């Protein structure tokens, strides 16, 4: 069995930042493995540990910088990795359809039995690529999975989908499938020193559009970001100033006045 897990390097904005054009200035961004993908990686590695003959492969659409994030996934136990990038991809503003085309070309190369993907990316938050990919490659799927069991013969996944309001939907999904993974599914491991060392020698295959049988049209997008701004604050909060003790004293007064704390 082969499990393909999508791994995205996401940008996180510093507490204080400035916008430069239609994005946050590069100096205010820090990059890390997408939190949801961390859970997907853990799910893939756990399956590879639970069953014989499971190969786990990560796929990342990202620049050379993202190799650090990819090595993190490798250090946690992913067997090998694929990175998709070239000048045309770099120049494009990738929308869901473009990512779907790139990832479906990778699926055609790798022929996985299961694809695991984070529910969403922490930076742009589209939350759509996994299900779009499933539809494109003709796999079954389930979105927002927070519990996963598999049959011994790996023919079916028994999943819980986390609905709103503390309700979970119990669903059976035939494999091959794409599952989009919600945080809380498992407890992502830290990369061990041994894992980090081993990751250095694991393969990261690089694919450009040509290698995937695609051209620049595959990453063309009709969706263009035209502005970015800080939302106007709606806050009319009363702020408590002073030292921590002074702030705490003012807050305590409010709690007493509201009658929720009795002395």
């Amino acid at each position: 069995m082969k499990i393909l897990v999508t791994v995205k390097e996401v940008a996180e904005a510093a507490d204080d930042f400035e916008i430069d054009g239609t994005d946050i200035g590069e100096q205010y961004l820090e990059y890390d493995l997408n939190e949801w993908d961390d859970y997907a990686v853990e799910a893939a590695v756990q399956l590879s540990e639970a069953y014989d003959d499971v190969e786990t492969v990560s796929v990342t659409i990202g620049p050379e910088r993202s190799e650090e994030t990819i090595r993190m996934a490798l250090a946690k136990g992913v067997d090998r990795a694929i990175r998709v990038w070239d000048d045309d991809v770099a120049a494009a503003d990738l929308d869901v359809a473009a990512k779907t085309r790139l990832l479906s070309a990778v699926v055609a190369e790798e022929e996985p039995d299961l694809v695991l993907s984070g529910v969403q990316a922490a930076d742009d938050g589209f939350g759509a690529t996994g299900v779009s990919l499933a539809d494109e490659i003709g796999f079954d799927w389930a979105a927002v999975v927070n519990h996963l069991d598999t049959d011994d013969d790996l023919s079916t996944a028994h999943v819980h989908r986390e609905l709103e309001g503390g309700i979970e939907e119990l669903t059976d999904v035939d494999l091959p499938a794409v599952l989009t993974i919600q945080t809380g599914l498992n407890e992502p491991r830290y990369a061990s020193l041994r894992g980090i060392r081993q990751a250095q020698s694991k393969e990261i295959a690089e694919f450009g559009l040509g290698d995937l049988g695609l051209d620049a049209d595959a990453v063309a997008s009709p969706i263009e970001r035209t502005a970015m701004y800080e939302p106007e604050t709606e806050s009319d909060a009363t702020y408590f100033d002073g030292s921590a003790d002074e702030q705490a004293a003012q807050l305590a007064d409010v709690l007493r006045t509201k009658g929720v704390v009795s002395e």
Partner: protein
Amino acid sequence: MSDVLAVADHRRGELRDVSFEIVRAGRELAADLGGDLHVAVIAGDVDGFADRLSLEGVDTVHTVDAGEEFNHDLYAGATAALFEELAPTALLMPNSVNGLDYAPAVANRLDLPLVADAVGLSYDDGLEATREMYGSKVATTVEVSEEPVAVTVRGGEWPAVEDAADVAVEPFDYEFDEATSGARVQGFEEVGAGDVDIADAEFLVSVGRGIEEEENLELIEELVEATGATLSSSRPIVDNGWLPKNRQVGQSGKQVTPDVYLAIGISGAVQHVAGMKGAETIIAINTDPNAPIFDIADYGIVGDLFDVVPALTEQFE
């Protein structure tokens, strides 16, 4: 015609709030486009739902009488088929958990550009949508240069339409055999039952990611004990297994309406705010002055919880 098709959301026999909000979004967009607003409702008691969706500004409600509950193959197939029949300019679907489970498939199948999780929409020579990025720290506008277009709409961003009207209801035939679906819903489970129901609490002390380590929870527990409050949390604390699921406030946890909600080290992600914005008084302690929680707070302390919380506990000991 430049019509809009909006798809309703329901679960266990109840239309969800986003169904009435998406009607507002659709109505406004249809007005911009100069076309009609079509609303689709799929599965379950579609006739009953159609009555409830006969709302001011809706031109036609289309009912797809197939299946009892949400099934993404049914929703994706029926939505795509109805779209092809009506040929609207814009297709609106909810950015709910079920929306996440079928809307991207519909967009892919119909080869439509997809704008996900829109919080604002307008049309002037093309669709323009407002979205948020980087955990709601910034808003963006995106323009879509192709039509038709698919959009998923964030719940809670448009006021619900409630004015009933006399609207044409048209059944739409769509054959669906659930047995052939690769994903089969087996049932539902309520999670988060436990010793305490945070929904009943008058004073919630709620802790988030800012607490950093499990052992630091002790600080919060001391405050809870000193004040007689009830302890709740945002999602990451439950994901980490530091508190049980019945303590989680938010979209996928509990909706709470206490007299006072004290949010400690919680940034205020939209999914969390959805569960606690009904609190009478909201107080936030956070080191980041730009944290979205301050936008809805009545009182704020920009400061380090590791200094403020022990000082606050001391006030009541």
